[in-house]
């Protein structure tokens, strides 16, 4: 059982949507801790719920659509309140946490790290605005998984975007 689970998700063939995969790949090169498991996937499917339930901490890395490309945001998913709506077989991070809680009665501490993308068209390269954030993204996720009590964001700890959005240090490190 991994103590920490890092999940980079999105479509690596859709330019900036692949940022989660690229960060995860770079983390794989840097982290040799057997208690940290790093996954990549296109979507968050329900079968990830048991791995989530086994972890003590989970970090999701994803791209998002927004007005300011290259904006980095870190959100703490403290609540498991979730409304599934028309759910079929893919979930968002909150849904996956809720699923883990409903099925296994364990929902770990979780963070969602997102970068606002610029281009989601076909392609396997990041735009410069997103690529420029890679070093701080990788370092930031490392701090989230290595700190006993991670400090997130400046103003918006545990809050939703945009309070903890910025282009620089939102990891509190």
């Amino acid at each position, binding site marked *: 059982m991994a103590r920490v689970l890092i999940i980079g998700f999105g479509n690596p063939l859709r330019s900036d949507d692949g940022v989660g995969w690229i960060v995860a790949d770079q983390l794989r090169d840097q982290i040799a801790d057997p208690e940290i498991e790093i996954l990549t*996937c*296109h*979507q968050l499917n*329900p*079968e990830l*719920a*048991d791995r989530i339930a086994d972890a003590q901490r989970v970090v999701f890395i994803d791209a998002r659509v927004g007005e300011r490309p290259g904006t980095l945001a870190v959100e703490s998913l403290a609540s498991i309140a*979730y*409304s*599934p*709506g*028309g*759910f*079929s*077989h893919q979930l968002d991070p909150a849904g996956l946490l*809720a*699923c883990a809680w*409903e*099925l*296994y009665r364990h929902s770990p501490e979780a963070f969602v790290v997102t970068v606002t993308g610029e281009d989601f068209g076909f392609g396997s390269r990041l735009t410069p605005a997103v690529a420029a954030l890679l070093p701080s993204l990788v370092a930031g996720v490392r701090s989230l998984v290595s700190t006993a009590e991670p400090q997130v964001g400046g103003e918006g700890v545990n809050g939703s975007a945009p309070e903890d959005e910025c282009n620089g240090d939102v990891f509190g490190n």
Partner: protein
Amino acid sequence: MQNIVIDPVTRIEGHARITIQLDEHGVVEDAHFHVTQFRGFEKLCEGRPFYEMPALMARICGICPVAHLIASAKACDAILAVRIPETAEKLRRIMNLAQFVQSHALSLFILSSPDFLLGMDSDPARRNLFGVAEHNPSIARDGIRLRKFGQEIIELLGGKRIHPAWVVPGGVSEPLSVERRDTILRDIPEARDIILRSILWFKRQLENFREEIRTFANFPSLFMALAKESGGLALYKGWLRVVNADGDIVADNLDPARYQEFIGEAVEPWSYLKSPYYKPLGYPAGMYRVGPLARLNMAKHCGTPLADQELAEFRELERRFVLSSFYYHYARLIECLFSVERIEELLHDPEILGKHVRAYAGPNNYEGVGVAEAPRGTLIHHYKIDETGLVTWANLLIATAHNNLAMNRGVLQVARHYIKGRVVPEGMLNRVEAVIRAFDPCLSCSTHALGQMRLQVQLLEADGRVISEVKR
């Protein structure tokens, strides 16, 4: 005349809409299942090298990429004119069987079990995996575990669970290691136990769904599937067989490569999904069904002990062939059981660790057809190439399309039974959706579109005005 529109149809793979037309007296006159998405893979593969086809065609679907890998690779085998190594064929079979387990588990446990556990008339906001988890978490856990079991085998064989590129023209790209074989074997008993208790649970549910069993696409039709000479369940290769509702063989030993001689493909202006039919009976009388129900109706035996026991009981459901499409769900569970048993047998075969897993050749034919049973039914890939090996033409005949005529007739049957007048309770519309879910259509596979899973039901006035609409 009024129309009821269900848009989007929920808990299916892809985008669809159902319209139900009422006459002046509020009686259901007609109904259609419209597939509103378009993929276009047949066209976009033109000009690509044929050996790229398996990896490209796997992109058709994130649920059943393996089915397309297998059928596509078989079409390429035919272009190479090679006989693939025995070990490669067995390894492909294991991956195909693992896909049956994960795909059937998704259909039954995640998409359809909310109807069984919470009821067709339950609160639609709870009719999902979360509602199931609240009502009966062990069923939800079993479903997730079973799907994961299949996905992990695919990942262990192919390197990744979605779009593995391990199945290639001429065989597979890499042999199976002892460690990976043993990892799969380790999980077999748990998967088998999950399926056995799920079958028991499902059989107990049947009594609560007698009306749905009686009305869910329950009519005589032809059935088509791959068949073995021995009469056993054929999932990877065989001849095509067509039987009627009485179980009489209508056509046998049909060469799948010559499918165009006996399967016609009709196109309707209200759907992107083609409507294949059995040519000798014409359109639409040549309606046939494929998939788990067709396969189990046709198979004399599955070929593994526990699945054969369950098949014997399945046969007792109706006096002759099992005609109600509600039983597709039941058939899926039996196929899961067969798949797990067969995977275990194949993994114990000493040849399975063989190192010779690929035959090499250049293109020796300008045309190739690949056929296999996908979870939803018979899947056909047909390519033509030029002298440089570039694809000039492709035709894909997908399992969901084979069932299109039957799904439309099923929607009409359910609508006629449950919809009385202009005020339609949500639970009645859910039954109209549920008959579609029984077939487990994969619309992303079968129309070649991007986006979320949606479903819509519309109730239309005699003049075409929408008087009721459900969208999700």
